[in-house]
């Protein structure tokens, strides 16, 4: 199988666009007709859809840490995922806990990101031991908040301690700390 096209010349990228709703009208109808004639494209799309299904399962099951958007959080809430949210201003330290029935812990990190590229986020214990590092966070000119979603199960394993979140980026050719946030992690609470 060619990486980009089927043996009959249809573009796999077009198949993905079709599935995502980015092909409409005659283009979508034409591709749909092709799918019912081409076993190769049908198999490709079936695998893409199965991958998408697994990605959805991974999100619903809070299986991985990711930077998310409000629309993803809204979808997670609709799916019944239990989310605990904390909002931080630069320099702020707040107490935070994780409860046994939490699925996801979300940190909303406000920051002035004007002019920054290569934005990254490090979560570390106060003694410097790094717990996670995220690089190349997608931001745009109007981004004022980074939303970091961490599986609650991962945080439940962390004993009570002080944690630091350090947001950094490159501006005018220099890597700089954009903002720091503190967490007084009190471990897992019980009701």
């Amino acid at each position: 199988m060619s990486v980009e096209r089927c043996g009959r010349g249809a573009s796999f990228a077009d198949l993905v666009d079709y599935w995502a709703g980015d092909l409409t009208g005659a283009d979508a109808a034409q591709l749909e007709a092709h799918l019912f004639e081409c076993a190769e494209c049908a198999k490709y799309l079936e695998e893409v859809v199965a991958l998408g299904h697994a990605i959805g399962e991974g999100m619903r099951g809070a299986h991985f840490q990711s930077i998310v958007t409000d629309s993803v959080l809204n979808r997670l809430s609709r799916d019944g995922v239990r989310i605990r949210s904390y909002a931080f201003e630069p320099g702020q330290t707040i107490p935070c806990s994780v409860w046994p029935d939490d699925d996801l812990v979300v940190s909303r990190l406000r920051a002035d990101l004007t002019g920054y590229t290569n934005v990254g986020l490090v979560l570390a214990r106060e003694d410097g031991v790094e717990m996670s590092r995220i690089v190349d966070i997608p931001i745009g000119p109007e981004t004022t908040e980074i939303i970091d979603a961490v599986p609650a199960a991962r945080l439940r394993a962390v004993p009570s301690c002080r944690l630091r979140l350090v947001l950094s980026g490159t501006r005018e050719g220099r890597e700089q700390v954009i903002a720091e946030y503190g967490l007084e992690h009190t471990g897992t609470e019980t009701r």
Partner: protein
Amino acid sequence: MLAETIASAPAGTATDAEAELYRRFAPRIRLFGLKHLRDEAAAQDLVQQVFIVTLERLRAGAVRNVEAIGSFILGTSRTMASAQRKVGSRRTALLDRFDDRNAMAPPIDAVTFDLPRVVRCLDTLPLRDRTILILTFYADKPAPEIAAELQIAPGAVRVARSRALARMRECVGAPDKARPTGGSR
């Protein structure tokens, strides 16, 4: 030619050809159903309904162009999905009230991937690409909406999405369950 075999045999006797036709087209009808009805149960219902009609018409010699059986199945899928959509809102309301909409599993012979492997592969993607896949496949966002959220161009979303999927397919390898493709149609 499967459809010709079914159409030319006494009704109900070409069971191997009928099974093979089902094996080839059921996944495509299910995808069509998932795309247009956005519901696994409804998609699986559609597969059964379309096949009942297709086999009845073939057995009765009522399909005019059996060489274009794919086109016939697509047309039937469109007609029946349209009919299902009319009762879909009531079904959706009931599911929202009484059921977990994610609980319906894909059919047993559907392609699936091992979740831990998919999660590991997602972790290897650049964060922007991972976010685009999540917005596409979990939040059901088309490229222009993703572009607005990430403040990049829609064309960049489409290119990144396609590239990220290619990397994911390479990383996860063969699906756990997949029918042999068999045949060119």
